[in-house]
């Protein structure tokens, strides 16, 4: 589903290497957790995957489409939720969802059904007619999430998706992620909550100073030199 080859990106005219020759392969049907300390290169990698940033070198393919050459095809297969749920706060929730559905050309009947079920699930039914600027952080997170999933993309890319969600919504999102992957799709998400990653991820990648320092299932990570909980593994790998 995702194939990243020799990806590099630097800032400040090359003086700061944010991502350094990254190679990563994420399979269909996988929930992939992308971990790393602050400033390790997680968000930069994600932003390059969805086209918000250009890479200095290397390539990214999404479901077989090169995201530089077949940009639109690659984008159509992605549903992205940023770490900061800033959206058009002078649109109502429903106007925003309808806008996203139009952009992704979702059929009217399909969109109605999907939007209805998401709004119900996230408890946003009563606020869908309000301007987004009146929403709380968590509500904004949910409306952005709904907007990102309304076209049922094969690949979900979620940057810190659980921050700001109440326990019930967080639980529902985790279930949705599982269901989505069980249908042969993929979820790629970054998080700082190691317990969540340990529990729901099929595979985990740890990035530090722009380089992938570990990748594998929890069992595979434990078999390495580091043993114990994901927290121990994380701390040991990222302190080096």
């Amino acid at each position, binding site marked *: 589903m995702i194939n990243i080859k020799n990806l590099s990106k630097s800032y400040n005219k090359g003086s700061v290497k944010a991502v350094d020759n990254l190679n990563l392969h994420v399979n269909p049907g996988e929930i992939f957790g992308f971990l790393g300390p602050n400033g390790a290169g997680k968000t930069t990698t994600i932003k390059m995957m969805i086209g918000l940033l250009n890479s200095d070198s290397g390539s990214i393919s999404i479901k077989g489409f090169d995201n530089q050459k077949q940009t639109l095809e690659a984008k159509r297969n992605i549903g992205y939720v940023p770490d900061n749920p800033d*959206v058009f706060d002078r649109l109502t929730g429903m106007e925003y969802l309808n*806008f996203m559905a139009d952009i992704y050309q979702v059929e009217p009947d399909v969109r109605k059904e999907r939007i209805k079920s998401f709004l119900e699930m996230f408890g946003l039914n009563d606020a869908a007619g309000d301007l987004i600027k009146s929403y709380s952080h968590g509500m904004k997170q949910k409306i952005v999430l709904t907007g990102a999933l309304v076209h049922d993309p094969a690949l979900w890319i979620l940057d810190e998706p659980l921050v700001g969600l109440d326990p019930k919504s967080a639980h529902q999102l985790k279930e949705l992620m599982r269901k989505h992957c069980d249908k042969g799709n993929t979820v790629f998400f970054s998080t700082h909550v190691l317990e969540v990653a340990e529990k729901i991820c099929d595979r985990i990648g740890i990035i530090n100073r722009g380089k992938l320092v570990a990748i594998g299932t929890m069992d595979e990570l434990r078999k390495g030199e580091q043993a114990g909980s994901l927290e121990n593994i994380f701390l040991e790998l990222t302190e080096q």
Partner: protein
Amino acid sequence: MNTFLTLLKTSLNVNFGISALRHRFIKQKRRLWEPVLIGVSFAFGIGTLMALTSAFFIALLIAGKSMGQPEIVLAMGFVSAQLIILMFGIFYIMGAFYFSKDIDILVPLPLKPSHIIASKFVIVMINEYLTLVPILLPAVIIYGAGTGQGILYWIKALILWLATPVIPLAMAGLFVVILMRFVNIRKSKDLLAFVGGFLGVIVAVGTNFFFQRMPKGKEEEFIQNFLNTQSGLVKTVGQKFPPALWATKGLAENSPEAIGYFLLFIGTCLVLLAALLWLANRIFFKSLLSGQEVNRRRRSVSQREMDGKYGKRQSPVLALFWKEWKLFFRTPIYVMNGLVGMVMAPFLIIMPYIANKEAGAYMFDIISNPQYTVPVTLAGVGVLLLVTNMNIVANTSVSREGNMFWVSKLIPVPAKQQILAKVLHSIAIVLIGIVVTAIVLAVILKYTPIRIIIIVFLAIIGSFSTVALNLMVDVLRPKLEWTNPQEAVKRNINAILGMLASFVALGIFAGVAAMMVFMGAPEWLVYTGLAVIMGAVAAAALFGLLKLSEWKYKKIEV
């Protein structure tokens, strides 16, 4: 005191973007020419206004001297300066005290309310000195120089100049703090911004109307007349707002009585300021919190709406167009700068001819003279294109997306389609301006219907090129880093650069039209030729714009 100074230093830094500017110009060395251009345009704007007010004050001084009351110049200067500051001060103070973003950061800090209020007060006051430049500065200088005042006058003038905003702003502050304690205006913030902006336009139009009524070469006569009929007004206003008269008396004379008035003025400043700070310590936080209550009423979407307006699929371009449309009309500052100015402009342009009867009659003679059909029609096209070009819709179209630009980068819609939606949105807004101006031409200037049709037709074709050129500038160098929508339109140099770029197209059109008229081309050929040239320039500009956007959108990183 130390805490206050630290707060003030930081507030000044944040409000005037000192660190940000230093970073950009000294560290990054980007856009070094920008402050020069801003400075020149600013000086030009203020300079023009100062020339007008100076002419008025000089005439007023001559008239006042002949009546034995030259100090009418100072009275007029102080009264109008303080009234304008009071009027706008209410909005500025409300914005600074209650709606600024940093309030939520400052309140939890161990700061006295009076410290917060005082730091905000200083910032508003510094901004107000700019308002004083075209109004009070000419009055003080013209009176001082015109009556040969000594050094003491200039020292007092400087102190009074610095103190002038204090009384009206402190009064506005007291009013606002008390009002906010009892009325929850916070939720009507947008309406407030709109009312404030609209007031600005009314004052601008009113001032313009006043100066336009002053006949050229007969200014003194006009002022004499004005004083005979209106001096009562100045007096009344002065009596209702005595500090302006205290300042006048304190400055104009050197008697002990005058020093008394001078001290009374300064004393009043200090007392009002102290009262504001005292009140702030007592009720500022309470009034701030009473405005923080969130409106809990929620609106759901009915099944009917789901099936009706949300149950249809539209193309991405249309979806983007409606998004632009809604965001534009729901952001008062955009409407103020993008629409209100454009709709008021035709009235401003014809105002001299209504205010001044001689000029008006001359104008009507020309318009109704069949000999001038072609130039009059072409002038109409020119007016429409100029009016519709004076807005920020196209030239800040990409900038207005700000930190929402990630959506534009993310969605699977080619850049050229996204830009096409922006072109359509800009044209739609421009059409409103075209319709209003055409109505003004038809109703007030009595243009015939057939001429109006020709003018509107040509103006629409011409608008495509001005919109495309304006947009090109914003696509090339969008200003995406802003926190307040005001920065996207008012502090965006693209607004000026876009207009300059489109003047190139307007120049070409004017040149082609003039050439055809001078060569004696028949009427139909002039319009057809102009339409063809406008169409060709529009097509080329649109083509260039779409190509440019494909290239540039890839380069922009967010």
